């Protein structure tokens, strides 16, 4: 690989991407208050002047190519315009990908693939693992604007975090999720902040994409749009300024052994069920299942035990011999891969997942697998940590329109220092106190997101 290309690929890990709806170089000034340094441009905005001025500001430009029309011609146009690479968004024929890859490599440019989830190559060594398919994060609103609400439970939160948790457990590559905001909808800025945090709490990046109205107002420099844009910048910067969090892995005493073909790529599956109850979980893929991978765990759940090899089964038995608990899903239980553009469970699959979930939930009970959180019904969380747990980071994301007050966290084990980080707020040292499981800590308020770091 050419040196320039190698450098570009290594820089990919630091790219903070956004879809950019303008080819006017003056709009690059809007990036000044954000850490965005990688722009995805539509074909109509491929421009040599824009690419030149972007490069002058240290901003990478990538041309978005779609399967429709003449993708190779579009890719060549991007490269000729001096863009730094191309992004293949959609379900391409393999041959088309290879011809574009060849063209990009020939021009010493980068190629990023954003396929549908069903075509994700999680173990192929890609520079970026990404998809354009994602749910728009937020509290699930049913028809007529009602939030799903019953006396028996809290609101369901639409999230990509279960999917991202699985992907992040399988790869060390940068992970992008490039879903668009809902069409014909004007969104309050908090919804964008939630989308940023929904991905970032798992160490992934949401490719920033604004709705049409916001874009128009931003380019026109309307004060309200600029104010919201600054908040988006602050929230992106918050995560970009802590690359050490991105390197942490899901931390838990509970492992879920799962593969893409049992629902790991769908939203609303077991990882989201566990996430909804704030139960930390460490996804383990079947190939990675070994005694080492299960060391120190208290419980492992396998959703397709029949597909395991003799060695993998022995690794699970070893966990059981050391006092851990094993829970197997029903024999032959499977969920389909995502179909077409559908990434959520169908009704019949929901019933299947619910059945398995009831079994898991009954065994887990009120157990503490790393952290237990209280007063977090409108939130999702992600517990990440270093091996051994000497440092853990607990990301919290609030999906409601109101700040959440008085959150309590009970952590498994003894910690001596707790700091709370939040966008647009100074770092706060928090008091720790003993609880039966280990360490307790109280958080006054979370607006959109915060991170509790414990040593």
């Amino acid at each position, binding site marked *: 690989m050419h040196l320039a290309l190698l450098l570009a690929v290594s820089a990919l890990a630091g790219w903070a991407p956004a879809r950019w709806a303008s080819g006017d170089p003056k709009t690059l000034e809007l990036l000044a208050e954000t850490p965005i340094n990688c722009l995805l441009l539509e074909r109509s905005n491929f421009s040599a002047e824009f690419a030149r001025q972007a490069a002058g500001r240290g901003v990478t430009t990538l041309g978005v190519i779609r399967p429709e029309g003449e993708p190779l011609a579009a890719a060549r146009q991007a490269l000729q315009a001096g863009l730094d690479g191309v992004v293949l968004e959609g379900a391409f024929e393999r041959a088309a990908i290879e011809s574009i890859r060849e063209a990009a490599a020939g021009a010493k440019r980068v190629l990023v693939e954003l396929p549908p989830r069903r075509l994700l190559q999680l173990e192929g060594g890609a520079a970026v693992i990404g998809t354009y398919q994602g749910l728009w994060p937020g509290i699930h609103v049913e028809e007529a604007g009602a939030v799903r*609400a*019953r*006396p*028996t*439970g*809290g*609101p369901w939160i639409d999230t990509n975090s279960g999917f991202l948790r699985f992907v992040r457990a399988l790869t060390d590559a940068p992970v992008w999720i490039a879903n668009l905001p809902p069409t014909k909808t004007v969104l309050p800025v908090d919804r964008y902040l939630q989308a940023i945090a929904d991905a970032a709490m798992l160490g992934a990046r949401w490719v920033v994409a604004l709705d049409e109205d916001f874009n128009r107002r931003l380019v026109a420099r309307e004060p309200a749009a600029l104010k919201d844009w600054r908040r988006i910048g602050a929230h992106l910067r918050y995560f970009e300024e802590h690359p050490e969090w991105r390197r942490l892995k899901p931390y838990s005493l509970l492992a879920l052994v799962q593969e893409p073909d049992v629902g790991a790529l769908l939203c609303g599956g077991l990882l989201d069920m566990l996430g909804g109850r704030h139960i930390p979980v460490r996804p383990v893929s079947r190939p990675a299942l070994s005694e080492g991978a299960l060391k120190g765990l208290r419980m492992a759940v396998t959703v397709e035990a029949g597909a395991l090899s003799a060695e993998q089964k022995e690794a699970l038995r070893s966990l059981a011999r050391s006092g851990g608990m094993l829970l197997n899903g029903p024999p032959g239980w499977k969920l389909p891969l995502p179909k077409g553009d559908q990434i959520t469970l169908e009704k019949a699959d929901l019933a299947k997942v619910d059945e398995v979930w009831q079994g898991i939930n009954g065994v887990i009970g*009120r157990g503490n697998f790393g952290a237990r959180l*209280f*007063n977090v*019904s*409108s939130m999702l969380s992600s517990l990440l940590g270093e091996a051994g747990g000497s440092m853990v980071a607990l990301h919290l994301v609030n999906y*409601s*329109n*109101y700040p*959440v*007050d*008085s*959150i*309590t966290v009970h952590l498994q084990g003894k910690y001596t220092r707790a700091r709370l980080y939040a966008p647009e707020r100074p770092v706060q040292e928090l008091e720790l*106190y003993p609880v039966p499981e280990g360490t307790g800590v*109280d958080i006054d308020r979370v607006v959109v997101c915060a991170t509790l770091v414990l040593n």
Partner: protein
Amino acid sequence: MTRRELLALLGSAPVALAKEAPTAPVAIARAASYNGDLTAILTRMFDQLGGLGRIARGKTVTIKLNLTGSPALRFQGRPLGSTHYTHPQLAGAVAHLLGRAGARRIRFVESCWATGGPMEEYLLDSGWNVRALAGAAPNVEFENTNNLGKGKRYSRLKPPGGGLVYPAYDLNHAYEDTDVFMTLAKLKNHETCGVTLALKNSFGITPASIYGDDAGEDQPNEKPAKGRGNIFHFGKRSPPRSAPQELDPASSREAGYRVPRIVADLAAARPIDLALIDGIETVTGGEGPWIEGLRLVEPGVLMAGTNPVTTDAVATAVMGYDPAASRGTPPFRRCDNTLKLAEGLGVGTTDLKRIEVRGLPIAQVRFPFGL
């Protein structure tokens, strides 16, 4: 009403019907917010009722909170205490005053929605600072009364006169092992009962282990995970055989008939010694966010009394209703009047002319709830 129901009602409280139900004063005060000096306001109110020392010194005081529905369900994302739960600041102020008045032990109780887990965790999930509340007075305890809890057996409490729906109720020991029973209710409408105040708060003293939809056929289910719709509201099934069975299985299955009577039964079986109604911030139109048409309001008022019926009568009047209204009249559009049923059992009077109001007059704090 069938002949059997009439006989049951007449047979239930012949003595009470023969004489006037008792009265007791009710104190009313303004409280603009939960961040104000609640301790000073409550001290004045309790003094108007004769002082807390008289009631609590050297005693175990059990305080029933109102934490209805799952803590995960918020109305417009607001803190639960600002909508349909008892507010933690108020609970803390009450605990502090009880401690200062010499209470030997203060036990916060609630039959926590759909769980038999520790009450402390339910409170944490509700956004309460349990450590602060535990430190508000000496010997503060918490008990989830949705099952056997810390007790070894259930307490069987009987309404004097035989009961309107059940002859007795099996409850968590906390409701028997106490010297003083206090209720810390919220000023709200109720879908089934019209209003939910001090009396209706006692509906939540019943354990879902026995009266829940997933209670056992023969024995309690010590891991309850559901509400009390089938047994209490609709009479679709019986409680476990281990518990007292319904007096008249042929009586109406309508919730607006059953729930007010069960509440009246409970108020008679487990008398309320002190009632405090939180109307600082609340909701109108129903008891929780699962009811359509809920609206946030800030009446900014507290009411306290030593008789739950007189306290509820005053609170109902503050809400803009006639506390003696009959079925079909707001707020009792589709239900019998719980206050009148409790009055019939001799618990207290609903006659505002016989209730002495101390502090502010009703007219000065009236806040019409509509319906």
